[in-house]
């Protein structure tokens, strides 16, 4: 059964300069226990998608259309009071920068404890025991860390604590929004390993958001590539990496740095992302695409299934 089914989700920011269409009608689904990687460059709407899923789009943004069905219920129709029970308990989130995501005046332990107390009817002592158990699960077992304040921990430790907090109420869906961007490369691998390990062990569903195709490709089952607020290609991860169809996807894969070809300059995708305030009429990728033709400039391609669940939004495929 679908755990999460998003259809035609659109989120816009109404700024003084005009309507910024951050997410433009995206649809996807996620089954229980499965994982989806949401990949795209900065500003393509990944994080806004994540915030839309838990209905926390910051002002002046607003979800303007679409449905988000979670276990059959439309989250966008829920009253804000009932939404509080979904956040944290059903859908948990891990943020990019764990230092700013923790409250600086409370200790790590008490913050995890509080997350537990928000949703579970247990005594403070039990919650604290559970918190230390959770911290152990994510590899923080040293004495005393539970009493440390966020600024006293290293980046990797903080991100582990963040994961512990996200797991505190056994969510069914974990959204990790660039969980390793603020970490250095060696810690990055450890934390990602930890996240996928926990996801498999607890049979959670997961949406892993990143701009780095290389780090998610072998850790998720499905991949969705986003560009300018739209999903341009969606498929099983293996299939998408080995047979990318959308020119943007192949560009992304080509631009992963490869240490064996260090003599040559890094490959990039030419051009720049168009402004979300002023998108081209046709395909939003047309100005950067190497196989662009006249149709691309006139009509926006729709996501279509080209067999075996591999979906792509491109006229030329």
């Amino acid at each position, binding site marked *: 059964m679908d755990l999460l089914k998003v259809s035609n989700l659109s989120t816009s920011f109404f700024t003084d300069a005009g309507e910024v269409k951050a997410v433009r009608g995206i649809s996807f689904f996620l089954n229980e226990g499965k994982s989806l990687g949401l990949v795209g460059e900065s500003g393509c709407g990944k994080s806004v998608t994540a915030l839309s899923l838990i209905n*926390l789009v910051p002002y002046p943004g607003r979800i303007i259309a679409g449905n988000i069905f979670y276990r059959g219920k439309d989250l966008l129709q829920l009253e804000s009071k009932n939404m509080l029970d979904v956040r944290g308990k059903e859908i948990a*989130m891990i*943020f990019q920068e764990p230092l700013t995501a923790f409250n*600086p005046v409370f200790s790590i332990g008490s913050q995890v404890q509080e997350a537990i107390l928000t949703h579970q009817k247990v005594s403070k002592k039990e919650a604290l025991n559970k918190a230390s158990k959770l911290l152990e699960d994510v590899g923080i077992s040293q004495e005393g860390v539970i009493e440390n304040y966020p600024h006293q921990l290293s980046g990797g430790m903080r991100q582990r604590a963040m994961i512990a907090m996200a797991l505190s109420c056994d969510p069914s869906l974990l959204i990790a929004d660039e969980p390793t961007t603020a970490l250095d490369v060696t810690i990055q691998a450890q934390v990602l390993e930890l996240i996928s390990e926990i996801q498999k062990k607890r049979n959670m569903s997961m949406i892993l958001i990143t701009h780095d195709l290389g780090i998610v490709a072998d850790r998720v089952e499905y991949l969705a590539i986003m560009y300018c607020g739209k999903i341009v290609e969606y498929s099983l991860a293996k299939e998408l990496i080995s047979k990318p169809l959308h020119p943007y996807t192949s560009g992304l894969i080509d631009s992963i740095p490869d240490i064996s070809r260090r003599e040559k300059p890094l490959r990039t995708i030419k051009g720049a992302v168009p402004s979300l305030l002023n998108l081209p009429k046709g395909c939003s990728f047309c100005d950067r695409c190497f196989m662009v033709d006249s149709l691309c400039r006139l009509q926006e391609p729709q996501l279509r299934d080209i067999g075996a669940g591999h979906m792509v939004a491109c006229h030329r495929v």
Partner: protein
Amino acid sequence: MWKRFRKNKLALFGAVTVFILCGVALFAPWFAPHDPVSIDVDHILEPPSAGHPLGTDELGRDVLSRIIWGARISLAVGFVAVGISALIGILLGAISGYYGGWFDTVIMRFVDVMLCIPTFFLILAAIAFLEPNIWIIMAVIGLTSWMGVARLVRAEFLSLKEREFILAARCVGASNFRIIFRHILPNALSPVLVSVVLGVAGAILVESALSFLGIGIQPPTASWGNILASGKDNIEIAWWLSVFPGVAILVTVLAYNLLGEGIRDAIDPRLKK
């Protein structure tokens, strides 16, 4: 932070003085050598002596004992009045800073209006209609001095509510109430602490002034202000009746101000030398 505070000699002096004053006020019956209200017509307006270290007033009451009991009144007025103003200020500031919108506009314009009215005259006007007892004075001072705290708290909330840990708190399902009081308020308290400590000094001064003018604490209850008032009547023959309560007010207000400024400097990392 404590280390930086300790290096500041003046702040330390303020803290110690405040501590001693609180002790004296709390244990006034043990410290006062005489009954502050017992009249002794045989010893009126006596200069300082061994029996009466700070002399006696026009009814023969011991000035030292009256100052000690007066400390109780002054500190009580200071704390309660500031407590009231901090409570109102924090609540209104937190709600208007967090929710914004029309509520914020209304509250902040109301603050502007309140700040336009000279506080002391507002207090005088209020006291003129009400019976001047200690509770009324506390309430009136508290109700006319919350605006600064409200503005401070609102400003802190405006910036803190945009921080990512608030978003993170929302993501674990924290309600608005919980976010305001558990997550934002503890982060906003340090400037409030400074303003509260300085506010105590201000409230003590206002109470003394009211009592001096005869519309504050009423005799025979001792307060520094009304001892000064009786000192004014006898200033040519009994200097001790004006000097000692004056010194008490000076030292207390100075101590609170030094303490408040010391805390501010200790909290503010930019002043780190």
